[in-house]
């Protein structure tokens, strides 16, 4: 089936079937404690069923990346919002009534104040340590600067809430689900229901416009809904409400960072120490991938003769986290780039100069197979475009003089950051390998089969155009399809090792091989070729954790009204080396979106506690979006690199540095709200 042909289910929320049951959760209202009693009314409406953990017996869990995650809370609840009961009912109204009529008594341990409120009580889930020393003893000298930084959660926004539809027939279960890892959904449903593989068919519905955040949590929905479907012999639709989706679907994990560094007169580091903790919520199956990714950034972005890295993932009492664009690098780069800007300020040097002295140029040459150093080019171009150096010096002058000199109605600030986006994770290849299969029976059409396809038509069009351009056919004759089988192309998940650009590279490799085979085998015979992300590794001269790195730098300019301390983001300028750009219009849209979402992450004044009362994700209207300029830097890299994540790493640090300069305050924590700016500004006045 072709995803664009209309024979696919679009969204789970659109599916309706005669006789189906609606399913929903009753969730824990407390953060941590024991379930004392569940009081279910005896006279439930006809056709209503309530399932508890005990009903699932020994199968009340799913396994993700070797971690067992409970489906329904049994005796203990570990976070506010943890599912305790699954309710099915013939109508949505019945479901609501039953939800309201059930009482759960808890013995509560303590209320959640913040994810940082109880650091001593957290369990360390994964830890990494790394030390590099060239034999000198830099520890003898005091560090030039030490600082700590906090980053908050970031909620995913999906237009379509997470959900699953199970079509039950005695012959088989059809699972229609919005998931980036259909293979895992199938394995989970097989396990929970005890059905053989041929009786379980997983059909991915369209996922969110971008990849992300639907990696393992959809498997929980699929497991519970399929269990109920088999038990009741009915089709089941389980779709989270908007509020549930925002509150409990996977989020970006908060981070806490301590950085200290010693610096020479030449501006080069003599020592650099990172210590960071990511708070992963009650459950997170990818702690190793998360911490090693952050450590990868710490190890390679800047170079120092003495380097120490201590990173850990801790559990917390928040809902489980999931991967978000950039995995753990955006949190790391916020802290590191804020630190660099503070260091530049302390040493009274240009932030560009400081970075150029310490960036690990050799690493970027190696991982991207380039001869030229990319960051000097990026920073020179960005400086020319934004006039950064002059404006920075002028605003610094104003900042120092502000309290005593001439009054101004508007104060300005400018901030810079640099970062990279890591593409193609080289870890757990057996489980997470990404596969693209291409088949054709004639010279005009091809079918591409992949594990998961995002809802974004831009991405699909880029993939089709890539195949079409290599094969010399029209993009209209390229069909995209999910794999429904248990074999290679049903692997995944989509994000961990196979982001959009990685899959695009695999599509091109497949197309090139198919073209060659057509020449030797004949143009109208059946040809199938397959490529995996391992095929890209052959180019990797040194084995890094990731296959390539997208490099970028950003400047954010802000103004703050002196009287009201109202923040205005004047302009955001990004320069990015993402290798070959398939479609600039599409690439710009992806990056622009990431810029807007990263501004939201950096400026929203939402703690988890406040968000409980919200059911609406705030996304700014077109009238509240700053001017965004995106410059693509042409590098020697012949292949495409990812673009969707780097803005999350670049923008927050540049933005908060600019605000800090404007209001004369060293900011350390996100988010920075208008209220915080007002309070700081008033104190400074």
């Amino acid at each position: 089936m072709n995803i664009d042909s209309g024979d696919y289910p679009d969204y789970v929320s659109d599916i309706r079937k005669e006789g189906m049951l609606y399913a929903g959760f009753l969730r824990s209202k407390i953060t941590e404690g024991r379930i004392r009693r569940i009081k279910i009314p005896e006279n439930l409406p006809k056709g209503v069923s309530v399932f508890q953990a005990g009903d699932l017996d020994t199968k009340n869990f799913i396994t993700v990346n070797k971690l067992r995650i409970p489906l329904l809370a049994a005796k203990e609840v570990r976070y506010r919002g943890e599912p305790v009961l699954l309710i099915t009912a013939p109508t949505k109204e019945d479901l609501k009534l039953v939800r309201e009529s059930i009482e759960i008594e808890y013995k509560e341990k303590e209320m959640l104040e913040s994810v940082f409120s109880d650091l001593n009580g957290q369990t360390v889930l994964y830890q990494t340590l790394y030390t590099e020393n060239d034999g000198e003893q830099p520890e003898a000298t005091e560090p030039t600067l030490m600082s700590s930084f906090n980053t908050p959660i970031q909620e995913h926004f999906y237009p379509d809430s997470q959900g699953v539809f199970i079509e039950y027939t005695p012959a088989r279960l059809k699972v229609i689900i919005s998931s980036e890892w259909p293979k895992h959904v199938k394995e989970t449903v097989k396990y929970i229901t005890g059905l053989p593989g041929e009786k379980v068919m997983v059909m991915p519905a369209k996922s969110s416009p971008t990849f992300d955040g639907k990696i393992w949590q959809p498997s929980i929905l699929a497991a519970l809904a399929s269990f109920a479907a088999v038990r009741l012999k009915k089709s089941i639709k389980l779709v989270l409400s908007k509020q549930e989706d925002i509150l409990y679907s996977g989020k970006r994990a908060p981070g806490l960072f301590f950085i200290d560094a010693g610096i020479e007169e030449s501006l080069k580091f003599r020592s650099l120490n990172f210590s960071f903790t990511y708070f992963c919520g009650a459950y997170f199956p990818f702690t190793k991938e998360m911490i090693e990714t952050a450590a990868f950034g710490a190890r390679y972005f800047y170079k120092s003769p003495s380097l120490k890295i201590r990173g850990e993932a801790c559990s917390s009492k928040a809902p489980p986290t999931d991967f978000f664009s950039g995995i753990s690098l955006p949190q790391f780069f916020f802290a590191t780039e804020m630190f660099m800007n503070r260091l530049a300020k302390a040493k009274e040097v240009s932030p560009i100069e400081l970075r150029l002295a310490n960036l690990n140029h050799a690493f970027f040459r190696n991982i991207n197979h380039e001869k030229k150093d990319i960051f000097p080019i990026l920073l020179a171009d960005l400086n020319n475009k934004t006039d950064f150096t002059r404006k920075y010096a002028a605003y610094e002058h104003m900042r120092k003089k502000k309290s005593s000199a001439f009054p101004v109605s508007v104060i300005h600030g400018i901030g810079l950051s640099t970062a990279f986006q890591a593409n193609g994770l080289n870890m757990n290849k057996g489980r997470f390998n990404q596969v693209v299969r291409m088949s054709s029976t004639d010279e005009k059409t091809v079918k591409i089969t992949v594990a998961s396809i995002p809802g974004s038509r831009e991405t699909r069009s880029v993939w089709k155009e890539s195949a079409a351009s290599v094969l010399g056919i029209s993009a209209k004759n390229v069909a995209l399809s999910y794999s429904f089988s248990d074999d290679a192309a049903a692997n995944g998940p989509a994000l961990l090792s196979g982001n959009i650009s990685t899959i695009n590279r695999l599509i091109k490799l497949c197309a090139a091989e198919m073209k060659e085979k057509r020449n030797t085998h004949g143009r109208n015979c059946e040809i199938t070729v397959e490529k995996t992300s391992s095929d890209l590794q052959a180019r990797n001269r040194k084995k890094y954790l990731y296959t390539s790195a997208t490099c970028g730098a950003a400047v954010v300019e802000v103004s703050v009204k002196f009287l009201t301390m109202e923040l205005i983001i004047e302009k955001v300028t990004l320069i990015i080396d993402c290798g070959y750009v398939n479609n600039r219009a599409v690439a710009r849209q992806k990056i622009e979106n990431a810029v807007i979402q990263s501004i939201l992450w950096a400026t929203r004044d939402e703690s988890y506690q406040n968000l409980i009362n919200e059911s609406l994700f705030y996304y700014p209207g077109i009238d509240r979006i700053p001017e965004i300029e995106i410059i693509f830097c042409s590098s020697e890299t012949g292949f495409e690199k990812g673009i969707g994540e780097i803005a999350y790493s670049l923008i927050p640090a540049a933005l908060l540095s600019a605000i800090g300069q404007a209001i004369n305050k060293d900011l350390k924590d996100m988010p920075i709200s208008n209220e915080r700016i007002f309070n700081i500004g008033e104190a400074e006045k």
Partner: protein
Amino acid sequence: MIIPFTLNGEKTVIDIPGTKRVIDVLRENFGLQKTKASCYQGACGNCSILLDGHIVSSCTLPAFELKDRTVLTAEGYMKTEEYRRIDRAFNENSYYPCDFCRWGKIFAIHEFINSEENSSTESLTQALKGNQCNCTSPSLLLSIAEQIIKNERGTNPRPEYEHISRK
């Protein structure tokens, strides 16, 4: 409550609770799934429909408001020539909003085309600000909408439109 109204060009009568949300009426009673339910607060623009030719959020509109009025949903508007021209402009610029926000954006452009508003960027920005979605680029939407409105209002020559109508 018995509510007669015109839906996508056809006269219809429905007997439903008058306070039922129009979004639910369209999706559940008429199976018109292109109108998407999202925030249920009239904030995101995903449930936009045209009521007597004007864009409204159907999630905050009670069904009794439909009485003797004309509703055009995505399914009905798709059959118009104006839609084909807008869709073509989107495709030519590689602008592919997702299925959730797409119709809110298209209806906002439709409303602007048929309004007395001047074509300044500021007023167009105001007209388009009611759509909250993270799927595509706001600046690209603005530039494409400007181009569409110029063409639709006849300030530019329209050779491509003649081409479309011949099809």
